[in-house]
């Protein structure tokens, strides 16, 4: 990316932060909190998710067969099924059916995907969006910014002034109630007059040809009931085998999306229905003659089905949990974090599949791989993995593999065309090694204004961000000199402390504290030179480099595992590599061996104390107030409580943050195009630690990035929690 491209991107993000950010933030957080509450009430949440996932896996596997079955079922009921290859094919068919008549539509992302409104209007038909949010966007001539709440970026005040300007009502509209009433009446007339009702479908059952529509307003019902012709457009992936299969989705979709246990209406229509319709004579006429067309859209989906990495995208039920739980999305919304149609975490998969990689490339980097969405997805899609794979494909580009000149000169495994910025952050290990070898000179050069300017211009490292300062002596070197202090016979356990690149070269203090704390609990520690986990290249989409890093790490740690020792990891994002991402990077046996023997540092301390280690060997917190920020990947792994428990057991008084992510997210916060977004996200965390209740507390955080971010945004200097337990 050029300097100008970076500047343009930064400007666009700043503009959206200023204009849409507050509204998006407020609304997504309500959804997000609602989801946490509503899913906590579900006794069998995990089992329901497994069931939902299994149904989708099976349905996509059997998709061609389900298309045949649904065609039979719908035709037996007297309707028609049309399988459209692409948007143009679908629009041609729908336009023919509508034949210039007036159309009322309920919300459907699939119809946005094919842009059917434009096609219908060009053919002379009037088209009205009856979903109130879609109606607002239609009036404002704007694109959706969220897959469930498309006008989430607009405040009540903005909608009021829009309506007052466009419709010029007798009394200016002001409250949400007044706006809703006005829209209802305005659209009510359109619904009465229209002849064609168009809907999407959240699910379509192949056995009966039943459409399931999940809505809260009632407009989809009206669009179907009031008109004589019903056209439903749905991606082919919406098919599930039978009516019974709808059950887990009905229980999950509202909770996952808006945080409601269930939305007001889950409509199961098996068209053509026979509800009375509106005749021209003012009577409720017989609905017996209704026409029904189901348009199933391929538009790239059948190809996604063949793609081992994108296939999972088709399991998506478009609930928006991944968007709502995403810190970046919360702050900037779908007009930045989205492509031609879809927005939020999974949008990369959808856009790459239906509109191509160029559309996905626009926003793909906004996924920092924090993984907060992973446990929120009702069908357990590994959304960060899809983002990484697509990033890798974008990196490789059309001719990236042809750049023989550069290839071979860099330490990574990537093609020559790769963006320099990505290459820099992806090779952090090499950088840190050099930085440490030449410290303090390297620190001095890096901090000089010439150095900063060069870095900003060439690789887009924002000069407002403080750079890490490399230590001359690495943790591994320190330990080699010092040696272990607990003899094997006295040792309660033996561990290999994994020296991640940051701890090894930059924050060596937390590594040394970790060694001393473990030793105080009678653990014999070794610190093997193991290299970078692959997290750095992985986050840049450099999958091949990440894989080779993973292999080296495994080689370095395997002897310890084979000897029955435990692996203790300080940096949560590296533990997440071992427990999650290595499944994709290492042979299965190696992955399982490492996963089963690896622990987060404080998790490990917790386990030692639970199993009889002497807690009094560690310092007494004596009621000291602590404000603790866990780490996004650590929380996804369910490992926040252990740190809190250990600190509390030692007498500290702990409060915790509940933001999804610190916003720094590895290299993200250093990149000049994202610096301001990173700070904006970070402010939410800083706010939580500067309230009356928290302002005087000692701040601790588990992740390196979180520490960097908090350091930049607070006047107190934060530290890793293990430092509170350091015996020195």
């Amino acid at each position, binding site marked *: 990316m050029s300097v100008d491209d970076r500047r343009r991107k930064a400007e666009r993000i700043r503009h959206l932060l200023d204009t849409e950010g507050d509204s998006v933030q407020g609304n997504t957080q309500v959804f997000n909190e609602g989801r946490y509450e509503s899913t906590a009430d579900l006794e069998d949440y995990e089992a329901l998710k497994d069931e939902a996932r299994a149904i989708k896996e099976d349905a996509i596997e059997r998709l061609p067969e389900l298309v045949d079955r649904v065609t039979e079922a719908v035709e037996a009921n007297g309707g028609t099924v049309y399988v459209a290859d692409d948007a143009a094919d679908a629009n041609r068919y729908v336009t023919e059916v509508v034949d210039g008549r007036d159309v009322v539509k309920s919300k459907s992302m699939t119809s946005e995907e094919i842009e059917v409104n434009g096609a219908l209007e060009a053919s002379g038909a009037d088209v009205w969006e009856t*979903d109130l949010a879609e109606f607002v966007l239609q009036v404002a001539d704007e694109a959706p910014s969220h897959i469930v709440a498309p006008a989430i970026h607009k405040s009540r005040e903005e909608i009021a002034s829009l309506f007052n300007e466009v419709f010029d009502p007798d009394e200016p509209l002001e409250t949400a109630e007044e706006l809703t009433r006005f829209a209802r009446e305005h659209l009510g007339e359109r619904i009465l007059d229209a002849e064609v009702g168009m809907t999407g479908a959240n699910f379509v059952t192949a*056995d009966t040809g039943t459409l399931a529509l999940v809505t*809260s307003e*009632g407009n989809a019902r009206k669009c179907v009931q009031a008109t004589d012709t019903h056209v439903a457009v749905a991606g082919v992936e919406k098919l599930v085998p039978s009516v*019974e299969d709808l059950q887990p989705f009905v229980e999950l979709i509202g909770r996952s999306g808006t945080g409601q246990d269930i*939305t007001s*209406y889950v409509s199961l*229509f*098996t068209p053509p229905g026979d509800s009375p319709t509106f005749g021209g004579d003012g009577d*409720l006429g017989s609905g017996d003659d209704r026409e029904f067309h189901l348009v199933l859209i391929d538009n790239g989906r059948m190809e996604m089905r063949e793609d081992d990495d994108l296939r999972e995208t088709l399991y998506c039920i478009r609930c928006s949990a991944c968007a709502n739980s995403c810190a970046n999305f919360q702050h900037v919304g779908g007009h930045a974090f989205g492509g031609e149609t879809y927005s939020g975490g999974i949008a990369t998969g959808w856009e790459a599949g239906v509109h191509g990689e160029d559309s996905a490339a626009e926003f793909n980097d906004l996924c920092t791989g924090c993984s907060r969405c992973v446990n929120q997805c009702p069908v357990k899609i590994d959304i960060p993995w899809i983002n990484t794979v697509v990033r890798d494909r974008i990196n490789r580009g059309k001719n990236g593999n042809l750049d023989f000149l550069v290839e071979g000169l860099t330490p990574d495994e990537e093609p020559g065309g790769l963006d320099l910025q990505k290459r820099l952050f992806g090779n952090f290990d090499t950088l840190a090694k050099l930085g440490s070898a030449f410290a303090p000179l390297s620190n001095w050069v890096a901090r000089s204004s010439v150095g900063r300017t060069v870095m900003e211009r060439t690789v887009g490292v924002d000069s407002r961000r403080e750079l890490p300062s490399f230590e001359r002596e690495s943790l591994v070197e320190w330990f080699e000199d010092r040696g272990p202090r607990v003899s094997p016979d006295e040792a309660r356990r033996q561990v290999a402390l994994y020296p991640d690149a940051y701890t090894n070269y930059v924050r060596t203090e937390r590594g040394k504290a970790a060694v001393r704390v473990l030793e105080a609990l009678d653990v014999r520690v070794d610190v093997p030179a193991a290299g970078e986990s692959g997290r750095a290249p992985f986050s840049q989409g450099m999958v091949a480099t990440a894989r080779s890093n993973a292999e080296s790490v495994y080689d370095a740690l395997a002897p310890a595992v084979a000897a029955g020792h435990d692996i203790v990891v300080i940096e949560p994002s590296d533990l997440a590599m071992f427990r999650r991402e290595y499944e994709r990077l290492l042979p299965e046996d190696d992955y399982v061996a490492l996963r089963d023997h690896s622990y987060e540092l404080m998790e490990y301390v917790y386990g030692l104390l639970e199993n009889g280690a002497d807690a009094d060997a560690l310092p007494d917190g004596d009621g000291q107030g602590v404000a603790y920020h866990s780490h996004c990947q650590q929380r996804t792994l369910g490992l926040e409580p252990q740190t809190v428990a250990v600190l509390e057991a030692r007498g500290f008084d702990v409060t915790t943050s509940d933001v999804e992510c610190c916003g720094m997210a590895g290299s993200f916060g250093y990149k000049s195009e994202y610096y301001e977004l990173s700070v904006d996200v970070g402010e939410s965390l800083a706010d939580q630690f500067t309230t009356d209740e928290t302002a005087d507390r000692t701040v601790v955080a588990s992740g390196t990035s979180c520490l960097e971010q908090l350091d930049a945004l607070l006047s107190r200097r934060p530290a890793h929690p293990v430092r509170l337990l350091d015996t020195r």
Partner: protein
Amino acid sequence: MSTEPLASFESSLDEVGVELVRTTADRFESALAPLVSTPAVGASLPFEDVSLPDAVETDPTVAELDAADTGVTAAGYGIADYGSVVIQGGADGEEPVSLYADEHVAVVAASDVLPDMDAAFDRLAEDIRGGTGQAIIATGPSATADMGALVKGAHGPMDVTVVLVEDR
């Protein structure tokens, strides 16, 4: 049927802001009367010895439907865990009657209150295969938050009342 689903039906309805009125076939008319404000429309009820009062128009014109304060229909069944009622039926007008009036009164037989979504879907699947063209799982009034705050009654009713006929 055990009283447990009924108790949880009642508390779930309360959570979604729906009033529950319990009655029997004998006392149905007097129980319904205070819930109906005119003009009212309805779809005939499928329960023996239970019928709608004359004030309720069961064959409305479009204008009457649009102007109605109250719409009374039967619901095929209730789902205790969620406080939902399932509105089925077609040609008799259950769908428009339950959707256009400001208030929807749903009449459910106590024996048709099912404990949870699993039970509901077993029955839904059977009904749909048996030819029921539509089943709306309706929970609370229609609602929207699209205009900047939560508003009840977006396109559909803003109030819902469930009348439970206990000896059915």
